[in-house]
């Protein structure tokens, strides 16, 4: 298996080259549907490297997606993967996580899926602290359906259903996650590939409802309509505007056009998960026997873990 290739001249097709994390990918489903310049490939790649660093195998982790461009992520991962209906990835994952507390459940979906049609599910899963990691690819619009305005579209940005510019206030996702009860909240962009991977490792390792926002370019729809140039130009914008501030107040993490993009690990604060609370407050007090799977709770093998010590971020 060749893992390194020199950049090919335009038009040349590379032969015998495979992705170093191919074992986590369904190679028979490639090429993927995502556009050139989209950040989704980077995010998916970061996720596979995170699994590799954690020493997780296909027996340890399941991925749930909703609908949309990011919703297709589940289909490219060679893991137990569940491509649900629009907005319902989190409640599906809730059932999965409660049924198999000995496994890691990760939701990978987009901003429209998770925060418009699925917004209610997000806040309640965070409130319950169901043991799952939610990775939101935020590209500020509905890409799959052609670039409509969404719940994270910045004020003034254009979209096919905001032809004169968006005038609705967007969600600040880290603030929403933190105030709903997420125990881990981080934001990076697809430019910050290593940091994003580390955030995924921390989020997956930490018990409870953990949230990683990955800000991504969508050159085909969002970028083009807002004259942001190619995907690479959006990455340059992130490079110029990103300000890393661990432990920052998520209330200050609004994304406003032209302003700094606040990134970092904002929240890292443990509290009992849904099943831990159930175990301690119900099963133990009532002297009920624990279900078999719960006896293995949070004992997923994390051999290569480089991640969190569980202390609050400084």
């Amino acid at each position, binding site marked *: 298996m060749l893992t390194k290739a020199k950049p090919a001249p335009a038009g040349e097709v590379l032969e015998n080259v495979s992705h170093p994390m191919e074992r986590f990918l369904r190679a028979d489903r490639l090429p993927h549907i995502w556009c050139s310049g989209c950040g989704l490939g980077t995010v998916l790649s970061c996720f596979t490297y995170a699994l590799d660093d954690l020493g997780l195998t296909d027996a340890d982790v399941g991925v749930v997606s909703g609908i949309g461009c990011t919703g297709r992520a589940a289909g490219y991962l060679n893991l*137990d993967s569940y491509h649900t209906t629009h907005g319902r990835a989190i409640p*599906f994952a*809730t059932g999965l996580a409660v049924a*198999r507390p000995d496994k890691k459940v990760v939701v990978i979906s987009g901003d429209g899926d998770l925060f418009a049609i699925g917004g209610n599910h997000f806040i309640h899963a965070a409130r319950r602290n169901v043991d799952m990691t939610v990775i939101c690819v935020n590209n500020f619009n509905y890409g799959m359906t052609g670039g409509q305005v969404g719940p994270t579209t910045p004020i003034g940005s254009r979209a096919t259903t905001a032809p004169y510019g968006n005038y609705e206030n967007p969600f600040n996702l880290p603030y929403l996650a933190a105030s709903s009860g997420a125990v881990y909240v981080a934001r990076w962009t697809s430019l910050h590939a290593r940091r994003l991977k580390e955030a995924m490792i921390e989020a997956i390792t930490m018990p409870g409802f953990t949230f990683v926002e990955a800000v991504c370019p969508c050159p085909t729809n969002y970028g083009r309509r807002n004259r942001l140039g190619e995907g690479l130009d959006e990455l340059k914008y992130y490079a110029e505007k990103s300000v890393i501030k661990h432990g920052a107040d998520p209330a200050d993490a609004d994304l406003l056009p032209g302003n700094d993009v606040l990134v970092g690990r904002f929240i890292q604060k443990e509290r009992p998960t849904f099943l831990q609370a159930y175990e301690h407050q119900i099963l133990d007090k009532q002297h*009920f*026997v624990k279900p078999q799977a719960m006896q293995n709770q949070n004992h997923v093998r994390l051999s290569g873990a480089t991640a969190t010590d569980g202390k609050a971020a400084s």
Partner: protein
Amino acid sequence: MAERILAGTHFLNGDEACAEGALAAGCDLFAGYPITPQSEIAERISRRLPQVGGVFIQMEDEISSIAATLGGAWGGKKAMTATSGPGFSLMMENLGLGMMTETPCVLINIQRGGPSTGLPTLVAQGDMMQARWGSHGDYGVVALVPSSPQEAFELTVRAFNLSEMLRMPILVMADEVVGHMFERVVIDPESIEIVERKAPNKPPGEFLLYEPGEDLVPQGMPALGDGYRVHVTGLTHDERGYPVLNEETQGKLIPRLRNKITHNIEAIVDVEETEIDDAEIVIVTYGISARSSLGALRLAREKGLKVGMLRLRTVWPFPADVLQEKADRVAGFVVPELNLGQIVLEVERAVCGRAAVKSVPHAGGEIHDPGTILAAIEEVFAHAH
């Protein structure tokens, strides 16, 4: 620790009996949302599941309730949700996901008056066609309809068994009166048959998630973490489970979702016959309406009218063969139901003009007066003679 199967004789309402039936069948996960007249199912099972190693989770709405139920099933559990009225409408989207992904689980609808908020505390059977056609697209449906708390128990067990046998969500279409009436429920563990989930028929690498067996049902279902690396999608998919969005794949998958029911229909259909042998008029009914109908049948027999009854414990798939077989031997069918005439349309299609078919509609809020059903019977007799 309390027993999973509550052996003995109990005084339960239909909702509570549904909860006990679920436990007896092996349900380990219930995800639901409060709504009248279903709430007693959630209340009972929230008390009982922790006693037997299961998990109850009250979700934020009915959409998430059924989504979590599907997720629980793919986590390897027997899972159930229950609802009423508007909650049933909200569940239609993920009922479709369950049908498309062939996910075994149970959905109980304790029917109340509709449309919209309608009659939250009062009975109807107005969701019978919604049960058949409520989610978009084509698929097959199995719906069981209990007429008593005893049957609420038994048919909930059966719903779990059929869900494993056919690899699909099974509907229990009870109603407010059956849900809220208290009666004797006898639970005999010896008489309860349990169907367990089929394990995959091949090892990882060889196993195809949606390769049907001779019974047209996929052959086994791995849970999360079993090493099969399944891909489960609501998109049209091939036997690997991979999305393939074309006419050929659609033409293979979607008919099978219906045909797996028709192919196994003899193992599914469950119709109770009462005084059918000499009957000239046959009442065709289900659920609580069968109990009003039994009163009408007795009144008619007292008058010397030869009346029998077919009680549909499975409304879907509709047992058309059972009616067709009788259509040439009887003068007519009378179909009382607590809606403006839904299942009577199926009766008309099955009978196909070979006998009279009379609807006895009722908008709901109360059950039929047996006298109303008797009047309909007499009317059919008058036309027949």
